[in-house]
């Protein structure tokens, strides 16, 4: 045997630099291997709290994103017409001078004429602070079209949502139900968690019209009809209530189920909660039979309490819930047909939930003290947990559906208990602890407060004195009063229509609004290029920051090119969307592990510079110089409240404090030494029952999450919703417009309800019988992935997957194409068969289709010739109905874009040469990529 001798221990790299991935918003820790000064290999950081060493397909392919030929190279000024892609490269000085010239006069006269929207922004606490200092009310990130239903429903109901706010107790849960998730933001933690469950033999139930990915590994698959999850959940609630399989003790102690409702129909407070003189919710103490404030020491709230005064009997929230959800219309038989789930199946799932929650309860020997001062010897766990994402939230009934799901969790006593769902710091944090929205504009001055927040009632709406929307996206108006994340999907169409007013400059960051993040893509492109009678653009100026040659770049007048994620400072802060785990608070940074080889700058650093040039308060030092040299400087030196800054780690002059502490000039070095992140562990006694747990509340104050303990009850009954309903019923001085009254009454119910997705009432379900969905591919991130030489081989084009019945009815065969029509438009696309699919659903991968010329790809790239977007079929307005109004295609509560309400019809057509619609190519300002960088051969 003369087996060759090989070197089993080759040198791996010169150096490892640890930073944070940004191939998506999961923000895993990465080890970037550097060889000869260049990135040679990227792997997961084993010590990182998010990913614990693993990386997804995108993360491992980061090197190809970093080296992509589509990277912008220098600031660009448009020279041809919008959409042509004709630009000239300019210097940063020129670019920033131009931007200042555009923005300064507006600020001094009418700051609202700047609309600053930042798509997939991970620095919202910074960009919003900038926008606030500028003084425009028109700021939001992408949450409104993404998943605000999820966030808002969670925060209004329990002070935190699924998504980035919490996670199942992966180590203890025995039954896990996952609704409408393909990938989610928490992609690696969910995968790590699923792996743990499966290895322990815990059961996973997937509720999704499509059985791929997580649903493929689920032990049980519920192939629900889109838009009907609320019904299914309420049927589970019905069954559990009926059988008494609910956690009464939990409901009585920790939720507003025992709180009394004002039942006097003549009262202006009808339907609001009864309060004592201090504003405390009232319950009946079962020991005395008398009303008492909910948090009184020793009080035992009575779920069935009644309070009779002045001839009116006030009953509890729980009583109202029973009255509603025990109705036969919520029974399994009643919902079976609509949901596509047989009644027996629903019963079985209800039984399984009950079985695991109550017969397989777990107990942790851990003493803890609640906010009423009572000490408990143990922590009881209900090891059922849930997770949900856009499958329930991206519908026009998504807010209420998400509320229903939270209600189900709470009824089972499985929130913040071992084995159930756990919050991640800074959550739990009730809606009342969040800011309210602010919109008061004063020329030349900052806005009166943060733009976004959680309205508690009509008084908090963003309306001008004459009742008109104050914001360009009409967030926080009667159309969608609780639009906590704004409505980015309405900005361009409202600005184009001059409704509610015209704007001057549209300033976008990291949002491909001319393509995959817009509904009605073609229409949006037309709005961006539309001119008025004078030949001027209807949206006069567009500034955009992107790092790559995306579709949107071609539609901007001034491009501020960003770096790649390996070339800049970034701050993943507890002030906005941190990377915490249920056991710990954590935050992280990015830092330039390699220097850019192009004339590009980190966008946040550019904002620091612009802020100084515009003399925005907070951005100018006392001597008139720039307050922050760059973003890194801001990350270290900015303080929101005394001692509280963007980063929690190594604060204090000695670097020994966590959470609160003075500025530490060496803070970033400490982060880098520690792998780019900081972790603050939650004490053992504070691990569960966080909203009510004294130890947690004290810890949260100590590290600066809040300034005083703020225990609260879960809001099964959401009073803010009722306040809007009351207004619609005619109470109060702020009144909704007539045409919205009925809708508000029907949809802003303080107890979770279900109503059919709006599109069903606007498009004819007989004419358009098929639901059309998209899913995120795990190996692609929206439009970014296609510039990645490895990832685009995995998903270079996307078929429309069609269920067996529709396949056979159309006599489709492999390689066929179909014409897919919605009330709004038609596309022609390749089809593929999939049996593991809800029989009335078709779907495709999201954002694979590309515009010719974008992303430095060949015009004949499969993404452009076979790939397609469903967005052409989805309109930001619903089809017109008899009322002559165009309702927005959004949730009536939050304004969340209802992407998944889409209905279509489908028919076989002869294969065209390309998928339709075919849009003309745009010119890429960076040309086309050819070869990829090949690393040196290591011997």
């Amino acid at each position, binding site marked *: 045997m003369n*087996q060759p001798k090989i070197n089993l221990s*080759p040198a791996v790299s010169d150096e490892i630099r640890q930073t944070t991935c940004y191939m998506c918003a999961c923000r895993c820790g990465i080890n970037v291997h550097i060889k000869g000064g260049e990135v040679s*290999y990227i792997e997961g950081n084993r010590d990182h709290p998010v990913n614990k060493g*693993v990386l*997804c397909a995108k993360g491992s392919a980061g090197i190809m994103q970093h080296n992509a030929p589509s990277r912008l190279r220098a600031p660009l000024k448009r020279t041809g017409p919008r959409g042509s892609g004709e630009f000239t490269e300019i210097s940063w000085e020129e670019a920033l001078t131009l931007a200042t010239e555009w923005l300064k006069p507006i600020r001094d006269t009418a700051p609202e004429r700047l609309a600053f929207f930042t798509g997939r922004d991970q620095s919202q606490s910074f960009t919003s602070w900038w926008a606030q200092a500028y003084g425009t009310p028109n700021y939001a990130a992408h949450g409104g079209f993404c998943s605000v239903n999820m966030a808002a429903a969670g925060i209004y109901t329990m002070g935190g949502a699924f998504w980035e706010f919490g996670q199942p107790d992966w180590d203890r849960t025995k039954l896990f139900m996952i609704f409408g998730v393909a990938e989610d933001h928490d992609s690696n933690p969910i995968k790590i968690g699923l792996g743990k469950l499966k290895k322990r033999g815990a059961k996973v139930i997937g509720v999704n019209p499509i059985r791929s990915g997580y649903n493929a590994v689920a032990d049980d698959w519920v192939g629900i009809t889109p838009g009907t999850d609320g019904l299914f959940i309420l049927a589970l609630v019905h069954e559990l209530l009926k059988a008494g399989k609910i956690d009464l003790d939990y409901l009585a102690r920790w939720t507003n189920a025992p709180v009394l409702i004002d039942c006097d129909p003549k009262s202006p407070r009808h339907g609001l909660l009864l309060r004592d003189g201090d504003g405390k919710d009232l319950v009946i103490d079962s020991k005395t039979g008398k009303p008492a404030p909910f948090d009184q020491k020793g009080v035992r709230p009575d779920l069935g309490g009644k309070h009779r005064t002045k001839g009116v009997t006030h009953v509890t929230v729980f009583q109202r819930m029973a009255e509603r959800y025990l109705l036969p219309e919520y029974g399994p038989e009643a919902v079976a047909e609509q949901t596509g789930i047989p009644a027996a199946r629903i019963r079985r799932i209800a039984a399984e939930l009950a*079985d695991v929650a109550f017969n397989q309860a777990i107990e942790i020997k851990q003493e803890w003290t609640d906010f009423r001062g009572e000490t408990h010897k143990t922590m009881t766990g209900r090891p059922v947990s849930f997770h949900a994402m856009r499958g329930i939230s991206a519908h026009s009934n998504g807010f209420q559906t998400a509320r229903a799901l939270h209600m189900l969790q709470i009824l089972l006593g499985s929130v913040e208990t071992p084995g159930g769902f756990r919050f991640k710091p800074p959550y739990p944090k009730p809606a009342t602890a969040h800011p309210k929205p602010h919109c008061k504009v004063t020329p030349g001055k900052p806005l009166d407060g943060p733009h976004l927040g959680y309205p508690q009632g009509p008084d908090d709406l963003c309306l001008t004195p004459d009742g008109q929307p104050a914001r360009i996206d009409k967030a926080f108006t009667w159309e969608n009063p609780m639009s906590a994340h704004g409505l980015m999907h309405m900005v361009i169409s409202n600005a184009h229509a001059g409704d509610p007013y015209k704007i001057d400059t549209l300033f976008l960051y990291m949002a491909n609004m001319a393509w995959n993040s817009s509904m009605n893509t073609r229409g949006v492109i037309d709005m961006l290029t539309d001119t008025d009678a004078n030949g001027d653009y209807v949206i006069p100026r567009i500034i955009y920051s992107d790092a790559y040659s995306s579709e949107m770049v071609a539609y901007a007048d001034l491009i501020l090119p960003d770096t790649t994620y390996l070339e800049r400072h970034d701050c993943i802060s507890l002030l906005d969307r941190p990377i915490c785990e249920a056991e710990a608070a954590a935050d992280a940074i990015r830092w330039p592990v390699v220097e850019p080889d192009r004339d590009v700058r980190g966008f946040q650093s550019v904002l620091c510079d612009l802020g100084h040039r515009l003399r925005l308060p907070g951005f100018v030092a006392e001597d008139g110089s720039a307050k922050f040299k760059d973003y890194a400087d801001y990350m270290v030196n900015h303080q929101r409240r005394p001692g509280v800054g963007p980063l929690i780690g190594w604060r204090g002059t000695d670097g020994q404090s966590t959470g609160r502490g003075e500025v530490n000039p060496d803070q970033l070095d400490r982060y880098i030494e520690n792998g780019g992140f900081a972790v603050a562990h939650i004490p053992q006694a504070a691990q569960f029952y966080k909203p009510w747990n004294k130890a947690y509340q004290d810890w949260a104050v100590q590290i600066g999450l809040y300034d005083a303990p703020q225990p609260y009850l879960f809001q099964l009954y959401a009073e803010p919703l009722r306040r809007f309903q009351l207004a619609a019923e005619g109470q109060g001085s702020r009144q909704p417009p007539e045409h919205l009254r009925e809708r508000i009454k029907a949809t802003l119910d303080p107890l979770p309800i279900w109503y059919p997705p709006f599109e069903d009432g606007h498009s004819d379900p007989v004419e358009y019988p098929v639901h059309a969905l998209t899913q995120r591919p795990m*190996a692609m991130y929206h439009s970014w992935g296609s510039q990645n030489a490895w990832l685009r081989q995995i998903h270079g084009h996307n078929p429309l997957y069609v269920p067996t019945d529709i396949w056979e009815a159309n006599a489709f065969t492999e390689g066929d194409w179909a014409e897919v029509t919605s009330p709004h438009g038609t596309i022609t696309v390749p089809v593929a068969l999939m*049996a593991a699919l809800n029989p009335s659903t078709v779907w495709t991968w999201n954002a694979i289709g590309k515009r010719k010329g974008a992303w430095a790809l060949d015009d004949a*790239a*499969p993404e452009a010739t076979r790939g397609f977007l469903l967005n052409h079929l989805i309109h930001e307005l619903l089809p017109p109905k008899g009322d002559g109004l165009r309702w927005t295609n959004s949730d009536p509560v939050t304004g969340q874009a209802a992407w998944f309400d889409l209905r279509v019809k489908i028919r076989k057509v002869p294969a065209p040469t390309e998928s339709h619609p075919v849009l003309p190519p745009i010119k890429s300002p960076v040309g086309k990529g050819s070869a990829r960088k090949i690393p040196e051969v290591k011997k």
Partner: protein
Amino acid sequence: MTSLPTHTEKKLGLVIDLDICVGCHACVTACKGWNDQGYGAPLSDQKPYGDEPEGTFLNRVHSFEITPENGPAQIVHFPKSCLHCDDAPCVTVCPTGASYKRSEDGIVLVNEDACIGCGLCAWACPYGAREMDQAAGIMKKCTLCVDRIYNENLPEADREPACVRTCPTGARAFGDLADPTSAVSKSVADRGGFDLMPELGTKPVNQYLFPRIKDFEGDLDVLSPLLDIQPEATGISGWLDKLLGKL
């Protein structure tokens, strides 16, 4: 060296749990990333930004749909790389000796210095585990990360294949399948690990674990004992009384 060793001390290989794999392709790009700058020639891509991008990958994830007699169709994501067969036909066909199976651990490798790029080994492999790199003209295949698993420049914990290290769900495990006490051997024994295309007699070292039974529709009735407090029978208030009576 084209003959196979009669015996290998160890049988290093992967165990892939089809019950857990979510088809995320993480192992695909982690493998590409490591091997692009590791053992031998980089894994090239042709027309990386062009109309037909295509390149060399040592590990790919297929998706299959299975329709049972009764019950809904299922999807299984199916990663596949070299199985490091005991009776590796790819080795015996090789005219140059470039393909060989290591006698110490059973890893099947290509000695790139000897390979003529004839492609015969790829023809002989039933599993599609070998890909000829179109730029180098050399046969590439999974090395079981032989340059990681013994690599003294890596921390102990990292001496495992790149694909295993990165797999977010933990669906991939690496170990010695000749050692019945190893974790991989045990999982194979417990879960009934199986060979791919056993009829071809290649005796793969890598094993696959079968997906657990899905969509089980047995009886479970924990709701009925309480149904004596049926609200229909007693009205809401009667139901409430009975229910709260339990407290």
